[in-house]
Structures are given as C-alpha cells and as structure tokens.
C-alpha cells in the first residue's frame, strides 16, 4: 500500500506541475486585466501543432519547444492588440465573448489546417526507470521539472525585474500605474504574450503524452479553470498550489476508482471551494 501511495504521489506531482504551467498563464492574464481567457486552451493546442511542425522539419524537440513558444507569444500579442485592447474598460462580459469567439475560430482553423487525425509528438527522452513495481518514464519527471523551472523563472522576473514591477503595479492599480509613466496597454499586451507562450510551452511538453488534435485544449483548460478558481482568481501562488492539490487528490483517488472517475475529485474540490471559500483556498482571508 505504501508503495502504491508513493507511486501515486509521483504521478500526482508530475501532472500537477504541468497543470500549474497552464494555469499560471491563465491566472496571470486574469490578474492583470480581468480577462478570463477562454482561448487559452487553443493557444495550448496551437503551440503543440507548431511544435509538431518544427519537430518534423528539424528533428529537435527542444527547438520545437522554443519556436512554438515564441510563435504563439507573437500570435497572442497580435490577438490581444486586435481583439482585447479595444475592449479595455468595457463590461467583462464582452471580453468573455471575445475570447470565446477566438477559441472557436482557432479550433476550427486547426481542424481545417491540420485535419481531424491526431498527430504524435515523439518525446525527446524515452527511457524509463524502475519505481517499485512500475516502469516510470523519465520524460514525465523532466516535464515536471521544466514546468517548475519556467514557473520559477516567471516568479523571479515578476519579483525582481523592472518589467516585473511594472506588471505587479499594473495588476494592483491600473490608473495609478499609468500616472507613474507605466505604458499600461503595452504591459497588457506583453503579459498576454507571456501567458500565451506558457500555454504553448505546456502544449508541446504535454503533446507526447496525449497526442495532438484540435480539441486537446478542452480538457486541460477546464482543469486549469478549476484550479485558477480554487487557488483564488489572479493569484499565481494559489493557482500553483491548487494545481498540485487537485492533481494529487486525483492521483490518490484513482487508487480506488478508475482514473476517468477520479476526475470527479476536481469538481468536488471546486464545488466545496465555491460553497465555503469563494475567494479561493490559498488567499488570505479578506478583512
């Protein structure tokens, strides 16, 4: 039993870190501009497709990861400037409709461009290691560590970088930030681009485990929304902790029920959070 728990702990932690990478882009965008980005899953999916294309052309997984992130960051910046910037200051509902529209357009674009057949990304590391009685793929450990590294880099950038201070100041008080000379529209576009790049990176990293198709964003985005709400909307640390919590609970739950049923756990956590602590689990109690 103990070894089963350890195996599930490892599975939970590694999926939790990938989920955290998807969710941090989402929560960053929400935190700074109150935009719930329904197109985040499609940026994740397009990132994976760009990754497959580059991988086929060059054979290098790591180059594919880099090119996909940069391409989707540029796409994200373009989408923000054309679609979201004109809506600044309007009813939040308009941005929800706009990003939902973007999501449909991008999904159908992918279907038209790449077709309905799922593609496979070959993982760069295929070796496995013995963990008690199972063979555990090294690749899952690598993506968990890489996700942690990307999130860590984001955190350092926000904490110490000049532009990190601009982003945090804009998150707290958009109007005062602009009165201090911070170019707020540019900061918004940059954050949207960073969030998009993080979605794309998670798409490429996760592609080998699930296969790449036009609807692959849906499952992940749903889970990412759950952890963003559970962790407290716009709270980066909260989203990361919630990702780990939900993934671990699901991993442990699958000891008793099938993995498909274990998904229910995240909804239970979501409902309990909304009932008893709607501001999020990992935020200080509001005074």
């Amino acid at each position, binding site marked *: 039993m103990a070894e089963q728990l350890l195996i599930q702990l490892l599975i939970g932690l590694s999926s939790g870190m990938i989920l955290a990478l998807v969710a941090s882009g989402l929560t960053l965008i929400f935190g700074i501009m109150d935009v719930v980005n329904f197109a985040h899953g499609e940026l994740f999916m397009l990132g994976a497709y760009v990754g497959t294309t580059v991988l086929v052309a060059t054979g290098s997984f790591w180059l594919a990861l880099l090119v996909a992130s940069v391409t989707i960051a540029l796409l994200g910046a373009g989408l923000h400037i054309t679609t979201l910037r004109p809506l600044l200051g309007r009813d939040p509902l308009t941005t929800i409709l706009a990003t939902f529209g973007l999501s449909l357009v991008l999904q159908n674009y992918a279907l038209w461009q790449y077709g309905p057949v799922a593609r496979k990304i070959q993982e760069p590391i295929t070796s496995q290691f013995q963990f008690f009685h199972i063979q555990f793929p090294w690749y899952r450990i690598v993506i968990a560590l890489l996700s942690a590294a990307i999130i860590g880099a984001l955190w350092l950038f926000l904490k110490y970088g000049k532009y990190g*201070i601009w982003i945090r100041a804009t998150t707290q008080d958009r*109007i*005062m930030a602009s*009165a201090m000379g911070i170019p707020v529209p540019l900061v918004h576009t940059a954050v949207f681009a960073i969030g998009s790049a993080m979605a794309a990176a998670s798409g490429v990293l996760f592609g080998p485990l699930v296969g790449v198709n036009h609807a692959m964003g849906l499952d992940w985005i749903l889970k990412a929304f759950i952890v963003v709400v559970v962790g407290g909307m716009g709270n980066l640390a909260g989203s990361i902790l919630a990702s780990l919590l939900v993934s671990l609970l699901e991993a442990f739950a699958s000891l008793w029920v099938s993995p498909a049923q274990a998904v229910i756990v995240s909804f239970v956590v979501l409902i309990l959070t909304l009932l008893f602590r709607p501001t999020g689990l990992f935020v200080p109690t509001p005074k």
Partner: protein
Amino acid sequence: MLTVEAIHTYYGKSHILHGVSLEVSPGEVVGLLGRNGVGKSTTLKTIMGLIHPTEGRIVFEGQPITRTVPHRLARLGIGYVPEDRRIFRLLTVLENLRTGLDRNGVTEERKKVLLDKVYQYFPVLAERRYQAGGTLSGGEQQMLAIARAMMLEPKIILLDEPTEGLMPKMVTQIREIITLLHQEGVAILLVEQNVPLTLAVSSRIYIMEKGVVRHHATAAALRSDDSVIHQYLGV
C-alpha cells in the same frame, strides 16, 4: 508652463467642470481652494489625462496635451499625487518608488541620487523600504505618494489634499516638503482644504465654486483680506 483653458469635464452624465481656466508658471506654487465637491480633484484628474475634457484645451510647455494619455504626461514631467494616495499596497516601499524610477535614460547613479534625496527628505521611508506599502500608516503613505511622484523628476506636481486626515505633526512635515520642492524649482498645483497652509505656501490662489473658478488673487492679497475666503469657503 501649464495652461488650462475653459475645460468642461463629465463623469458619465454629470457635468462636473463648467469651463475651468487656470495657469501655472515654472517653479510656481499655486493653490486651488473650494468647498467639497466643486471639482478641484476633477480638475487635477483632467490635467493628468485620467478623464478627458469634452471641451477646452490644456497646454503644457507649449504642447497641447488635452487628449494625451497619462503615461506620456508622466514622461513629459507631470507628477500626480492623488487624494486617496493610491499606494501600490502589495509592492514594497522601494518598489513603489521604482515604478517612477525605472524609466529609459535614467542612469544607475542618477537613480541612487534620486533615492538618496527622498530618503533624506523622508527618513521613515528609508527605514521601511522593504516593507509592503499597504502596511504604512496614513501619514507615511502620503509621504510615499509624494516621494513616488518625485521619482519622475517632474517639472510640476499635481498635489491633491496632501494633509487630509493627517496629524498636525505630519501636516508640518508636508508643508516643509512643499517648501523644499518649491526651492528646487518644481511647480506645484495644490488642492487643499487647509486654507492657512495653502495661503502660506502658494504665490497665487484660485477659488472654485460649482465647477468654475470664481476668484483669482495673489496669496498675499488673500492673507491681508480674508473676506473673499470667508465668502466662498465659509471659514
């Protein structure tokens, strides 16, 4: 240096400013007095580009700025200290200052000089530089708001009720800072409820009523004859 010509400003449907005109010369401290709700803060917000006027124009150093966005105005040299201070509560004191300091073309040495200067003016900010802005007292937050605007090396500071709700000791300190800024050659447009302080530090005074400037005089004239003050402000 700053000319406001007959501006009309609305908040939604309510017409707040009905043609306000005023002028500030380089290095001058100008007071803007009036009862609550006559449009003093709105005048400052309109100059800062936080609300755009529907009519009239604003000119800063010969350049029309009526429709200019706030972040460009800050870069042009207009500092803004809002009435509610608007400290970035989760940023440390130093990070609050850095929002104005991390501009293009400011060398590391220059940054240090500017920081040392505000730490000398406001020693308490130096002590608390790594503390979150939200944990400071009201008076300290006011100092931080002024210090933060100073980081922009502004040519003019729009100062909105800096002594509101402060203890007398703090009021004295704010007054000293206004004098110091004036000596450095920074122009100040000061909105205040504290009439004696405003008359003491300003060279000229505008008195507003119901969205227009009703009276304009030198501070010296108002100091010797307080009937006008009495008429418009009831003090």
